[in-house]
């Protein structure tokens, strides 16, 4: 029976739901609640905001930097296993890697020329 192979996954889903729900329920019942000013402040989330401004525009520069970082981070992640297995992959691996890096270089040149790396416009 092929569906039987999936039984452990079902058990895992049930167990994790029970554990997560149970933990939240238990802590809401058992934990002591003593609110102080320091506890109500945002914890390690940067400077405390001056005003509530969800309708206002704000720059998303950090988002852009984070996204670019991930792109070039992934490049490095791919290069490590390639370097380790270079002897076995031989020319095939080299060609694949060069194609990959050329495409990323094009993206890099595009981002650079379009001003994606400038902090102040």
């Amino acid at each position, binding site marked *: *029976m*092929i*569906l039987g*192979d*999936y039984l452990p996954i079902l058990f895992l889903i049930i167990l994790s739901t029970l554990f997560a729900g149970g933990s939240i329920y238990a802590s809401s019942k058992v934990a002591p609640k003593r609110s102080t000013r320091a506890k109500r402040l945002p914890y390690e989330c940067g400077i405390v905001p001056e005003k509530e401004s969800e309708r206002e525009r704000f720059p998303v520069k950090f988002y852009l930097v984070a996204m670019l970082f991930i792109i070039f981070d992934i490049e490095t992640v791919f290069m490590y296993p390639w370097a380790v*297995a270079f*002897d*076995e*992959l*031989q020319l*095939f691996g080299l060609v694949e890697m060069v194609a990959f890096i050329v*495409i990323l270089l*094009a993206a890099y*040149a*595009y981002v650079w*020329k*379009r001003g994606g790396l400038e902090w102040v416009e």
Partner: protein
Amino acid sequence: MNLAQEFSQPEVQLGGIAPELLLVGVALIILVVDASFGRGDNRWYLAGLSALGLAGAAALAIMTWGDNELQLSNMIAADGLAAFSKVSLAAFGLLTVLLGRDYLARDKIEESEFYALVLFAVAGMMLMTAAADLIVMFLALETFSVSLYVLVAFRRASLASHESAMKYFLLGAFSSAFFLLGIALTYGAIGSTNLYGGADPVAEPGIANFITGTPTDDLSLLIVATGFLVIGLGFKIAAVPFHMWTPDAYQGAPSPITGFMAAGTKFAAFAALLRLFDASLFPLRSEWRPLLIVLAVATMIAGSVLAIVQEDLKRLLAYSSIAHAGFVLTGVIAANDRGVSGALFYLATYGVAVLGAFAVISLVAGRDEERVLLADHRGLFYEHPLLTTALTLFLLSLAGVPVTSGFVGKLVVFGAAVEAGYTWVVVVGVLTSAIAAFFYLKVMATMFLQERDPDAPALPVGRLASGVVAVAAVATIGFGLAWSPLINAAESATIFFQSPQEQSAPIPPGG
């Protein structure tokens, strides 16, 4: 333990994906060159380079005509379906780029990204039609979907454009999740994500050789997986009940992109559906046919009926595109040779007609697309007789009136369904076509029989845009009168099919 010795050099055959590679290369060149050296307002070379790339891709696709094999470790199918689809998609892309050039210049929003994204989208659609593995299919699906999400939002000053892109993106991501779940369940059921598999079903399993070559009675999980794949692809072809995003996305997108979505997305997703159901899952047709019949009937009825009450011409054509998805589905359901070639003929001619219709709409809409309501087209004939005649021709083709290509398409698709024994589905199709004729006639009556609004601004009609309209009109009437070349091409566009019993046989006749 030495894993390295198990590595064997894969055989690299790039013929099957050469068009895609060329398009991606040209798109990258466009992006880098324009960012580095792009100066001035009149950057005609962007459209020129894109057009050259698309023409080259079409030529490369034609060169693979006659191939019938799997390439790149059974990941890519180089067969008639892929070749026919790629040529059609390149043509759609060409019309979109040329129309987009005039559109963007008029609204002063021309950017190199538009052309690059259209090329990426066409490359993704092409890969979708050639995908012989569900993972490749998903990759292709995401490539063109992500490009389209950005293109829908290309009118950056327009909130409606943003809203459409957001809705399209959220629902598109949602449908991708269904498709992925279908892939995961397929892997669970057969131990592979391949559509075909190799000659030995145990060593290289795939959907096709698993069904025919493995002695097992339990296909329940594969059927469940198929259901999820239908949902994922159903979103892309806009089949009811997965059509909710279509009117909203079509309405806010720039009109050339709306036409491109209606033509290209539908073509790519239907090509994948044809490969999946009429080749890989063909032996299981008694299982999936009821599912697709329900979808087709609901799609034809809902699309035609809901279009009647639309006041916005772009929304009206969105519902019309939903109804057309239902008509093409009857060809998929037929699952015989005529069904496949009919569906391909239908998709190619529908794409050209709908691109032409949206070209006219983009011209009439004027700057920033302010005049897209049905009421804005009152008396259009007396100001722009040629444009109006062209739009009338496209609408007649969509309605399936004789002498236009739409009539031939419906005839072949419905004929195939009758041949397969689904006459009642065809009866529903003919009845809904009659309902649909009503709203197409309503648009024509508005253009011909009513007075032109005296405040309507004059329309600047660019040369490229009028060229696109003219080409689409000639193709629509040409394939309506002399359909045999295109029908013959579609008939030779067979889907690669193999099973352990019958090696590389064409699609078995339906029954």
